[in-house]
């Protein structure tokens, strides 16, 4: 790779099969230096498998992949030496202390003990875990464990950090603290690649993202671009007392927005002017239980592209 090559990951028709099952089905994408790049999609979309191929812990079946200008098939070790990895499941070493978790991880990279110690102290401060340095890992809260895993992924000063569902299972406060730490990394110029099935996480963190479904990429762009391309500016969410009421209302609502999407428990009316549409709903004698006007989000983009909500 040229030292100033702005593309850190290049995937072309990248495919992964497990026996007959196609987990990733010919995806094309590029990750550029310094950006936060996201894979958004529901569980089973192929996000984790794609991440594992980038992380060089899962050989790809077909297509092309280069990571940091190198070939994962023959230079996996060299690539992994320059990556940070935050796996979906906590795999901290429960037999070691917080500090020793960082220490031994640095040693896996072949770093000298003195250097790892210095770096581990810095990272404990970064993860706000200084006072838990000598604690064992088990008693840490979920948020602390995630922060420790992120700190661990930075031990080798990586050029790119891969985060697989970094905040799944955390309470809102712990998530915000984690996001704030990730912003800081972004400001420092670290390239971040993350998977998530939380649209708010993708919207908050990602400069650019791809939406995955069924092993394929169905859209690509910045959160703003995707919303502009696939959704209207605003959405009116209507909830009805019974499914029959909802069914009866849908044809009448069709005229009130650019598009109407009935989902399991509500009807979404896409429109440029949410308040105006809400007023017309009332004026036309449609009587929902509740009306909510909000900005369009990536959730709406996903719904439009796949006909399903992200958590289905």
């Amino acid at each position, binding site marked *: 790779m040229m030292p100033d090559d702005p593309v850190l990951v290049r995937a072309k028709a990248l495919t992964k099969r497990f026996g007959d099952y196609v987990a990733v089905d010919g995806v094309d994408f590029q990750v550029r230096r310094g950006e936060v790049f996201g894979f958004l999609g529901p569980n089973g979309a192929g996000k984790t498998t794609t991440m594992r191929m980038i992380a060089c812990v899962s050989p790809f079946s077909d297509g092309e992949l280069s990571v940091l200008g190198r070939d994962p098939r023959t230079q996996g070790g060299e690539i992994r*030496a320059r990556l940070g990895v935050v796996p979906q499941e906590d795999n901290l070493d429960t*037999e*070691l202390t917080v500090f020793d978790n960082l220490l031994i991880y640095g*040693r*896996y990279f072949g770093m000298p003990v003195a250097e790892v110690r210095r770096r581990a102290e810095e990272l404990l401060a970064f993860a706000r875990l200084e006072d838990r340095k000598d604690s064992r890992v088990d008693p840490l809260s979920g948020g602390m464990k995630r922060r420790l895993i992120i700190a661990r992924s930075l031990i080798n000063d990586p050029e790119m950090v891969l985060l697989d569902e970094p905040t799944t299972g955390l309470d809102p406060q712990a998530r915000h603290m984690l996001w704030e730490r990730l912003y800081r990394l972004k400001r420092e110029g670290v390239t971040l690649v993350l998977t998530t099935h939380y649209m708010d996480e993708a919207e908050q963190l990602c400069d650019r993202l791809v939406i995955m479904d069924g092993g394929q990429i169905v859209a690509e762009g910045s959160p703003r671009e995707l919303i502009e391309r696939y959704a209207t500016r605003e959405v009116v969410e209507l909830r009805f007392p019974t499914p029959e009421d909802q069914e009866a209302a849908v044809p009448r609502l069709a005229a009130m927005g650019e598009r109407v999407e009935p989902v399991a428990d509500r009807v979404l009316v896409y429109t440029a002017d949410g308040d105006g549409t809400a007023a017309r709903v009332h004026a036309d004698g449609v009587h929902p239980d509740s009306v909510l006007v909000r900005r369009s989000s990536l959730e709406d983009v996903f719904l439009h592209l796949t006909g399903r909500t992200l958590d289905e």
Partner: protein
Amino acid sequence: MSDITGGLSRNLPATRYTEREVRIWRHFWHTAALTGVLVPLLFLGAIGLGLGGLVEQNQGKVAGFDYLVFVAPGILAATALQAAAGDSLWPVMAGTKWTKAYHAAAATPLSPANVYRGYLTWIGARMMLNATLFMVVATVLGAVPSFWGVLAIPAAALGGLAFAAPLCAYSASQDSDLSFPVIMRVAVMPMFLFSGTFFPVDQLPSGLQVVARFTPLYHAVELCRGCTTGTLGLSAAAVHIGFLGACVAVGSWFGVRTFAAKLAP
């Protein structure tokens, strides 16, 4: 010291994984050392001296040796096998599945093969340590007549590895530990008892003798006994070392593959 570890970790990345095991072990080395002394003491006391006394009253010698001298290398090799089995089953399942410590290591420049070899290195190192403690105790009790006995220490470790290399490979291929107790009862226990450990294999019915001679423990016991008694011939040494070495080589061939299949599917 740091020069040595630095050089090792540069040239043999597997030792970086071994270091993890050493760092964990440092927290409980006293208990480990205590067991290392206590277990051979119990065995040598009960079987070597207790049962051995009875044997000597009735028959005199076993295979030409005092019973204590005969049985000590058997116990050495058999306890090494037992420790190797213990280290190769549940701890491997923990690494691949329960704590996923192996997955964490395989996300770094270390490869699955490095993790496998690094872990085997650790098993070997611990067996050397335990065998050393055993030999000190056995020597004090008068169970080691020859200076060549010192070579029984690496011999016992090699015997343990001959079992650990294939067994770790097997454990990494499993998705659950259901078969592990069966292995302990059906493979480890019979081998422990019938591989020339406590009595010469000639005592077995001839069909079983053949089976016994094809277990790694038989060769480990013979090798250790040849060392502690100073009666090992070169050709016998070559056969035993060759057999045990082949077990390690074949086991490693599989281990590199099962670890890769599990950690980098």
